[in-house]
C-alpha cells in the first residue's frame, strides 16, 4: 500500500512541475464562470434599431421618445426611405426597423385606426420574436394611455410567477453545466494524455517492471486529478456563491458526493480512452471528439434535449454528464433532497461501476502483453 502512495506522490510532482498546464486547469473554470456570469446574457437589451418616420408628427415623436427611453432598444439609424431598410439590415447594423406611416396623427384621430409596421430580422428567431413582443408592448402601453381610463371590459389578467429563479438569472442554468463540463474535461482528457504519454515516451515499461501491480500504477495516475477536480468543484461553487449570487439551496455534502461519483466516472472514461489510444494525439482527439463534443452537444447543457430528434435524445441518455447535470440542477437550484434524485444517482453509479471495471480489465489485458 505504501508503494501505491509513493507512486501517487510521483504523479503529483509531475503535475506540479508543469506550471502552464496547472494554470489552465485551475484558470479555465474560473474564466468560464466569470464570462458566463458577467458577459453572456440571453436578455435582450440595447438592441440596435432603425426608425423610418414618414409622419414626423406629434404621435410619432412621442412614441420615438418612449422607445428611446426603453432599455431594450437603442436607436442607431434614422432612415429616410423604404429602400434603405434592406441595405441597413444587410450591413448587420440593426435588428429591427419600425415604420411610421404618413398622416399618422390625422388617421388616428379621425379614423381611430392606423397601422405601424415592424420589420424584424428573424435570423435568430428567438430574438426576432422577443424584439417584436417588447416593441408591441411599448406601443400597446401608449395606446392604453390614449384611450384614457376607459378600462376595456372583460379583462383576463394573468399573474405570472417564476419559480426557482425569480430573477430569470441565466447563471442558474449554466453553473451546473460548467461544473459538468470542466470535470469531464479535466478528468478524461488529462488522465488519458498522462497515461498515453508514458506509453509514447516508452517510460511505461519502466513503470511496469516496478513491484507495484500494473492496474495500481494506472490508478495512481488518476488520484491527483481526482483531487484537482475536487478543488475545482469547490472553486466553482465558491465563485458562483460569492460572485454570481447563485446559492446552493440543497444539501452541500450530497452535491459534493455526487461530484466525486461523476469524477470517478470521468476518470474511468479517460482510462478507457488511454487503453485504446497509442499516441497522445489520438488520445486527445479521442477524448475531445468522442467524449467532450458529444457531451457539450447532447447533455442538455447548451441545447435543450427536448428539442432534439428522438435518436439524439437516446444518445443523450448514454452520457453520464447528462445525469450529473440534472442532479446538480436539482440540488443546487431546486433545493431537492436525495429522494428526488435517487433514480439519477443510481444510473450514474451503475455507469461509473461499469466503466471502471471495463477500463481496469482492459488494462490488465493490454499491459500484460
Amino acid at each position, binding site marked *: 500500500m505504501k508503494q501505491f502512495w509513493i507512486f501517487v506522490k510521483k504523479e503529483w510532482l509531475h503535475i506540479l512541475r508543469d506550471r502552464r498546464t496547472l494554470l*489552465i486547469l485551475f484558470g479555465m473554470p474560473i474564466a468560464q464562470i466569470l464570462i458566463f456570469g458577467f*458577459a453572456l446574457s440571453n436578455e435582450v437589451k440595447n438592441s440596435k434599431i432603425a426608425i423610418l418616420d414618414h409622419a414626423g408628427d406629434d404621435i410619432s415623436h412621442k412614441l420615438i421618445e418612449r422607445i428611446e427611453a426603453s432599455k431594450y432598444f437603442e436607436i442607431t439609424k434614422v432612415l429616410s426611405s423604404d429602400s434603405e431598410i434592406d441595405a441597413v439590415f444587410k450591413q448587420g447594423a440593426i435588428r429591427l426597423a419600425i415604420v411610421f406611416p404618413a398622416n399618422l396623427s390625422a388617421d388616428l384621430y379621425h379614423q*381611430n385606426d392606423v*397601422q405601424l409596421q415592424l420589420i424584424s430580422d*428573424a435570423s435568430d*428567431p428567438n430574438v426576432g420574436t422577443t424584439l417584436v413582443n417588447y416593441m408591441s408592448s411599448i406601443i400597446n402601453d401608449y395606446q392604453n394611455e390614449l384611450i384614457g381610463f376607459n378600462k376595456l371590459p372583460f379583462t*383576463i389578467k394573468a*399573474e*405570472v410567477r417564476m419559480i426557482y429563479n425569480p430573477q430569470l438569472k441565466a447563471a442558474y442554468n449554466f453553473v451546473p453545466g460548467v461544473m459538468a463540463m470542466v470535470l469531464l474535461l479535466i478528468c478524461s482528457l488529462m488522465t488519458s494524455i498522462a497515461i498515453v504519454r508514458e506509453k509514447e515516451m516508452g517510460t511505461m515499461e519502466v513503470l511496469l517492471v516496478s513491484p507495484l501491480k500494473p492496474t495500481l500504477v494506472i490508478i495512481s495516475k488518476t488520484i491527483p486529478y481526482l483531487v484537482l477536480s475536487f478543488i475545482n468543484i469547490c472553486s466553482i461553487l465558491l465563485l458562483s456563491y460569492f460572485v454570481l449570487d447563485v446559492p446552493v439551496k440543497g444539501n452541500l455534502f450530497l452535491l459534493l458526493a455526487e461530484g466525486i461519483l461523476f469524477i470517478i466516472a470521468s476518470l474511468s472514461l479517460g482510462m478507457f480512452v488511454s487503453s485504446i489510444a497509442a499516441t497522445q494525439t489520438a488520445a486527445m482527439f479521442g477524448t475531445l471528439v468522442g467524449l467532450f463534443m458529444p457531451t457539450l452537444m447532447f447533455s442538455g447543457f447548451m441545447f435543450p434535449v427536448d*428539442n432534439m430528434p428522438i435518436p439524439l435524445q437516446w444518445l443523450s441518455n448514454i452520457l453520464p454528464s447528462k445525469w450529473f447535470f440534472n442532479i446538480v440542477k436539482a440540488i443546487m437550484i431546486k433545493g431537492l433532497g436525495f429522494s428526488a434524485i435517487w433514480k439519477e444517482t443510481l444510473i450514474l453509479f451503475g455507469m461509473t461501476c461499469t466503466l471502471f471495471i471495463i477500463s481496469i480489465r482492459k488494462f490488465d489485458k493490454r499491459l500484460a502483453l
Partner: protein
Amino acid sequence: MPVIQLILLPLAANYEVRNIQLSIVDHDHSGYARALIQKITASGYFKLNSYVDSYKEGLKRMEHDHVDIILEIPADFEKTLIRENESTLSASINAVNGQRASLGAQYLLAILRDFNREIRLKWVQFPKFNPMPIIQIDHSFWYNPMMNYKHFMVPGILVILLTMVGANMSALNLVREKELGTIEQINVSPIKKHHFIIGKLIPFWIMGQVVLTLGLLVARLIYGIIPAGSIFSIYLFSSAYLLCILGLGLLISTYANTQQQAMLISFFVMMVFILLSGLYTSIDSMPQWAQWVTKINPITYFVQVMRLVIMKGSGLKDILPHLVSILGMAVVIIPWAVWNYRKRS
C-alpha cells in the same frame, strides 16, 4: 470528422422553445376555462401534460422536471369575468432555464390576450365607427420567414469547425516537432524563420478551405441552406480568416513545450473567443468591457460575415470593414509568431 459534427450539431442546436409541458389546475370547469385550455394546446407550443387537483401536485411534477408551467384557473372564473369584468389566472413557471421561461411566458400571455379579445368581441358590440383609437401593429420577419433555427446555427457552427480544426492543427504541429526533437534538425538548417513558418501555414490553409467547402456542401445537401449572397465573398473572407487563425495557433505553439500544453492553451483560448463572439448570445447584451473584447476577437467577425452573407445576402461592400479588421489582426499575429520562434534557445 468535422462533417459528422456539422451534420449532428445543428440537429441538436435548437433553441426554439416548444413542447412546453403544461399542467392545469382547473377549479372552474366552465365553458370558458375549457375553451382557453383548448386554445392553448392548439397553439402547438404547449403540450398538455396533466390535469391535477391542486397546485401542490403540479409542483411535485415540476420538481421532477415533468412540467414546465402550472396554470391555475380559479373557481368561478367565468362567472367572475362576466359579473365583475375582471378575472385573474395564475401561471407558475419553472424558471431554471431563464430564457425558456421568458419565452414560454410570452407565448402564454399572447394566447391569453388573443382569447381575451375573442371574448370581448362576443360580448361587446363595437360600433362601426370605433370610439377608441387603435394602433395596429403589422409585423414581418425578414431573412428567415420560416423561423428556422437551423438556418441560424449552421453558419455559426461552420465557423466553430473551421476555427477548431485550424487552430488545433497548427498549434499541435509545431509542438509535436518540439517534443519529438525533430525541430532540432530544422533549427540547424539554413532555412529562414519566416520561410519555415509560412511553409507550415500553407498546407493547413489549403486544408481549411477544403473543410469550408465540405461544410458548405453539407449545409446545402442536408439542410438546404443556400447562401443568399455571393460565395466568392465567403471564400475571400475565409482566406484572410484562416491566415489569422492559423497564425494564432502557431503563436500558441511557440509558447508551449508539450503537446498537452499546446492543446490545452489553444482549447482554452478558443473557448473564451467562441463564447465572447456573439455566436450563442448577442453582443448587444454584453457589458462594455466584453464588447471591447469582441472587437479584437477574429471569430466575431467571421460569424457576422457568415450570417450576413448566407442569411441576408450581403455583398462584398458590406463585409469590407470586417475584412479589413481580420487582415489587420493577421498582420499583427503572424510576425509576432515568427519573432517569438527562436532557433537557438
